């Protein structure tokens, strides 16, 4: 699947904004554009592969140092310009295989770069911007924490080309000392380990799963449908608190995150005592 990374990102960025180019001064791997969405003018952001990227470990669609800081800067631009205005929606289109695994990245503190992007998205949400994530392909580990996981609402397509996970299969198998087949069979019984987006949806973290018949070549009608879903998510976010409590109060979480709910209930009760 990795050879397709970025195809869907570019396709959907173009479908929703009518263009697919970086803003001046940004790396070619970060697409940013403002485009109409319902009655709003939303800012769309997407990370795509750039085989000529300056940093060699970030040439296949990974989120590296330049990508993370470009995202942070472009999100902060919206926060700064809307300080005394209607808070515009921010839409993260997600199709990222991983963060960049490199020595240069570690030396120059990619952890802080990733935190800076998450800071920007999270700060936008806290400032009242509806931050909406649309997962059209892969959303893996640190890359998703950097680009997408701080959103008020997360939507994802429901086909096999979509994957939200903490680590890709081969590495997860290696680290937990299991065969890939063993990992796959465990993942059938243990929902949080599953690589299937339909299982991920059971955890209650998603706002909505969307079905698109041809995600690599969407029809105008399919694009309009997705726009409609994004608009609904924006309206819902504007009516709701700016924190992430919806993820723990969802129907799915009541079933799948019982332990989380128990922890929170007990901690709240014990916090006040004494």
């Amino acid at each position, binding site marked *: 699947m990795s050879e397709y990374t970025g195809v869907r990102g570019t396709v959907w960025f173009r479908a929703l904004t009518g263009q697919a180019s970086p803003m001046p001064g940004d790396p070619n791997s970060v697409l940013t554009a403002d485009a109409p969405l319902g009655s709003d003018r939303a800012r769309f952001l997407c990370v795509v592969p750039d085989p000529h990227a300056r*940093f060699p470990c970030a040439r296949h669609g990974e989120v590296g140092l330049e990508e993370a*800081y470009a995202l942070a800067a472009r999100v902060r631009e919206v926060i700064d310009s809307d300080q005394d205005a209607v808070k515009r929606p921010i839409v993260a289109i997600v199709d990222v295989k991983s963060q960049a*695994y490199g020595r240069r990245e570690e*030396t120059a503190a990619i952890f802080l*770069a990733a*935190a800076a992007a998450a800071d920007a998205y999270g700060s936008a949400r806290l400032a009242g911007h509806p931050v909406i994530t649309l997962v059209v392909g892969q959303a893996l*580990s640190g890359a998703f924490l950097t680009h997408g996981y701080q959103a008020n609402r997360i939507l994802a397509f429901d086909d096999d080309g979509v994957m939200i996970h903490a680590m890709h299969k081969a590495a997860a198998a290696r680290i937990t000392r299991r065969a890939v087949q063993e990992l796959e069979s465990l993942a059938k019984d243990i929902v*949080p380990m599953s690589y299937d987006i339909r299982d991920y949806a059971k955890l209650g973290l998603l706002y909505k799963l969307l079905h698109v018949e041809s995600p690599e070549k969407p029809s105008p009608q399919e694009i309009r449908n997705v726009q409609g879903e994004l608009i609904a998510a924006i309206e819902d976010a504007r009516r709701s608190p700016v924190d992430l409590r919806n993820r723990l109060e969802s129907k799915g979480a009541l079933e799948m995150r019982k332990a989380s709910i128990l*922890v929170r209930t007990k901690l709240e009760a014990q916090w006040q005592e004494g």
Partner: protein
Amino acid sequence: MSSPKYGAAFINRQSFIELDARERATALLDAGTSRELVGPFDRVESPWLPMQGVTPQEDDGCVVMKGKIAGQAAVVIALEGAFQGGSMGEVSGEKMTAALDLARADNEKGIPTSAVILLETGGVRLQEANLGLAAIAEVMASILALRKHAPVICLTAGTVGCFGGMSLAAGLASYVVLTREGRLGMNGPEVIEQENGVDEFDSTDHALVWAIHGGEQRVDMGLADALVDDDTPQVVDAIRRLVLKGPPPVHRSSQVSLYRRRIEALDASRQWDPKELRALWTSNGFREDKR
């Protein structure tokens, strides 16, 4: 042997690294003020580990302790590196998030409450995969919401270090405290070697590992705020000072244009001696805003 470095202070020091998570949390809080919340006797364990034949632990490797630091209300959240590598699971993650949220609520009610997070972790617990990753995203959101009101201080003393998704949590902190034995980075050397080969990162080259991720390097590059010896009174003193300082005017993770310029100025065609970056990032034009 008569070097002053190995004098009485060194011989008599009280190691912080050798303390477990519960002892560390207790040591940081003012004497007699600490109270553990959702402790081992509450027996909230990971529901996912037993399903995979892994023995859970009654505190899921996360200790939450409320009390006072320098006389002010504080909560210490300590990950136990000896349990599953300090990894973030559903329960340990929610303990951290809920504690940060309660601290924020107290601040909003007019009770200044800071948070100290002790990070000895490789990141997501892969046996709980997506709930671990989600927990880290929620921890990050809660740090962002709390740090506006009160300092969130991350401390990595060693020996596990702070890696994976939780390094982003450290990146969001108001202040980061490290020992020379503490390491901080997103991808550990073994992971990089596996993904991109031994030429990219030789994980057996310990000098290289410490030169890049080690506490001294991180502090000297301006990526962390205090370097402390492995000495409990020194660690306690550093944390107290930062609690009393309050949140910085601008958090490090919000200084985007500065760091963008720093990255732009790098020659990406070659590997660097980590010391080069120390010199570059502290030179004129690349200095961090006063914190």
